[in-house]
């Protein structure tokens, strides 16, 4: 018997979790002698008070959508893929190689090719831990987390020794040719006469992320392979009974997951940096875990959670820039949100269930 109605489970629980996280954050801010109300104002203005702020919020959100979806697809197959960080790093390599290989005449040609490159590299990098899990039983959590370090080392090696332009002191690739530069929200919205900040990095990848949300939803809930992924994720023995091959499902789910993580690179590498630098992913792979958990591994939830974390990232950066609240505290606030929405879910759910029960009995 489900005690909470679906809407309460999907809406009330995350909202209460967020409120508690914010309340605790406020206490911390008070404790260090700052004004929480002013801090909230600063975050809101900084993140959504201007098109510049929105441009950054949506840019971050795009990264988180890709990594959140990556985590969710694997999670539906009961694979805890915490290697999105590494898969996105390698995805960046794929995107960079595509962008630098050919003198692209127009972004519309470069983008699909770069997407293929990023997805392939991300998927290939996820394939190794997936195969080890499927065939050898090596736990995916252990292998993917180790692969994050491997990806960083690979990138370091390639950037320093092979991809760095001659004479450059910077461990980064050359700037991508102009034909690969993606249209920003400023360019896109300008077509419709809507003014948008020129300086903000949000770009067309945001719309591709939205499309990815829709496609993942279709994949998971409407296709045969999604059905098999979910069935395997819920019960491996039942999957074997039904003739669903565990090896196949682990591989497919992880390849899709890695590809989604790799696709993130069209946003940060191709769209924003326009060259490949060290640590270009900046932790988005890990934030994606929190985004997916908070979004209940549902694409729509992931979309909302990604926007929220984009807001926290951009608002947090503004806070660090303009107040005496140290940068570390921003991490604390983000961590509290992750803690309450991801890990301490039941702390909110159980009292809520009790309230609903009492209410129902009162009516009965």
């Amino acid at each position, binding site marked *: *018997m*489900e*005690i909470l109605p679906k809407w309460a489970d999907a809406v009330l629980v995350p909202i209460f979790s967020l409120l508690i996280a914010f309340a605790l954050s406020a206490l911390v801010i008070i404790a260090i002698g700052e004004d929480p109300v002013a801090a909230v104002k600063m975050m809101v203005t900084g993140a959504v008070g201007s098109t510049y702020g929105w441009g950054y919020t949506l840019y971050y959100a795009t990264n988180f959508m890709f990594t959140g979806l990556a985590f969710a697809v694997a999670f539906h197959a009961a694979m805890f893929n915490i290697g999105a960080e590494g898969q996105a790093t390698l995805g960046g390599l794929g995107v960079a190689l595509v962008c630098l290989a050919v003198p692209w005449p127009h972004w519309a040609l470069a983008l699909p090719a770069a997407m293929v490159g990023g997805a392939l590299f991300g998927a290939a990098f996820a394939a190794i831990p997936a195969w080890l899990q499927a065939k050898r039983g090596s736990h995916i959590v252990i292998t993917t987390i180790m692969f994050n370090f491997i990806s960083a080392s690979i990138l370091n090696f390639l950037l320093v020794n092979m991809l760095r332009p001659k004479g450059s002191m910077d461990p980064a690739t050359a700037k991508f040719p102009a034909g690969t530069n993606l249209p920003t929200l400023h360019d896109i919205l300008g077509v419709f006469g809507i003014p948008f900040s020129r300086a903000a990095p949000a770009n067309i990848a945001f719309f591709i992320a939205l499309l990815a949300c829709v496609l993942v939803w*279709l994949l998971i809930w*409407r*296709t*045969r392979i999604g*059905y*098999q992924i*979910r*069935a395997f994720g*819920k*019960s491996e*023995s*039942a999957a*074997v*009974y*039904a*003739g*669903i*091959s565990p090896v196949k499902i682990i591989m497919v789910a992880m390849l899709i997951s890695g590809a989604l993580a790799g696709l993130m690179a069209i946003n940060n590498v191709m769209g924003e940096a326009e060259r490949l630098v060290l640590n270009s992913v900046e932790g988005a792979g890990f934030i994606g875990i929190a985004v997916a958990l908070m979004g209940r591994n549902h694409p729509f939830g992931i979309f909302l959670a990604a926007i929220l974390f984009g807001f926290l990232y951009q608002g947090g950066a503004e806070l660090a820039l303009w107040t005496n609240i140290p940068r570390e505290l921003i991490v604390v606030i983000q961590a509290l949100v992750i803690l309450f929405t991801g890990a301490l879910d039941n702390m909110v759910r159980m009292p809520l269930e009790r309230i609903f*029960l009492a209410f*129902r*009995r009162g009516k*009965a």
Partner: protein
Amino acid sequence: MTTAAAIELKGISKAFGPVQANKDISIRVMPGTIHGIIGENGAGKSTLMSILFGFYKADAGEIFINGTKANITDSQTAIRAGIGMVFQHFKLVQNFSVLENVILGAEDGALLRPSLAKARGELKRLAEEYELHVDPDALIEDLSVGHQQRVEILKALYRQADILILDEPTGVLTPAEADQLFRILERLREEGKTIILITHKLREIMHITDTVSVMRRGQMTATVKTSETSPEQLAELMVGRKVLLRVDKKPATPGAPVLEVENLRVIDEHGVERLKGVSLNVRAGEILGIAGVAGNGQSALLEVLGGMIPATGTVRMNGQELDLTGTASDGQSRRARGIAHVPEDRQHDGLIMDFSAWENTVFGYHNDPAIQSNALLMDNAAIRADTAAKMERFDVRPPDPFLPAKSFSGGNQQKIVLAREIERNPDLLLIGQPTRGVDIGAIEFIHQRVVELRDAGKAILLVSVELDEIMSLSDRIAVMFDGRIMGERLPEQTNETELGLLMAGVNEEAA
């Protein structure tokens, strides 16, 4: 005034949220008697006993033990009041000795040695008094299930229980072990102990109890003297309508062999040989029943035939050989050959408990092009409509395709699996433990459906640990023991004693 009741419950009620598990229940159990409590799954038997043993607190009502009002707040107070409980799933530490298990939670002090010495003497006395012989130094994991159950009883007696509650005690026992248990219970009764026996098996109630209480939907519908009732009457009281206890079927008219199995061998991942050369065949229009105590290879047999595990040997389906090891040996290829499989453990294998009913009705057949609306997407609307129709035909309650499988009762879950497998019109139906955890009303329905499939000329391989079920459904009976077929019998030419011996590995013809 007569002697006080050993246990008297007055007006016990307990609700879990909106579900009324127990409603105004009153019973009196006289000392030195065996009192049966019978009812379908979910009738509230276990809740009632959990209240008596202090696991739950009743919302209303009073408990009297030997005439004095008892306030049972947890299992410790229940034990102090002289109540002992033997659970369906034993609560024993597998790698502890019998002695260590007996004193667990009843140690006298910080040092173990005095407690162990005392327990050793006490166990010896109990063993003599009640004929409960168990080696006190044996490890639990080395004991048979029947002996493990004795340890549970000893644990209760060691804690000076005068009232013993046994929850479905025979579910895991061979018929011979069950008989031994009943002798022990009779002995305990002679010594003045009071026993409450919870079961869904009418035969046991009739065999051993003095009085019996019937529960239905949280209420006590009747308490009668066992000598003054009949299985038919009890079944009717349990279900609330007349039930057919015997399966009504015509003699089989078997046709050509559908399934032929030769020298089937399975070695599992631990290197244990689970099938040691099994040969059998099932013909069209007949039910072959596999009898045996759980764990003698029946599960492996079903799993091989269902494509879940690899094996060596030969299996022919309609004359064509099946791949037993390669890539073409999985559930999908078996279904393509016309083999449907109702697995022994529906909650573990047959259903995805978190999936809704409609998602479960295509489980295993999800690659069927008929349920695709185009090359990419599944036709969910059509599956839902089809599920609603199936639920109607198989009387699944509630008939809501959107409800997750875990929200249905055991019987209704089984009907969902059966609807899925039978309506595919298979040539061969593998069916394991068709009525385990299924209430009486649903048992009747399930048996009828299986017989109907047989009458439609299909082959059926039935595996069950319920001897009654094997005897009444099968057209032929094969008994398995230790990975082998011990012998084949015709149901009308055999009896429970003979089958029981075969199940224990004794073949009198061979001897």
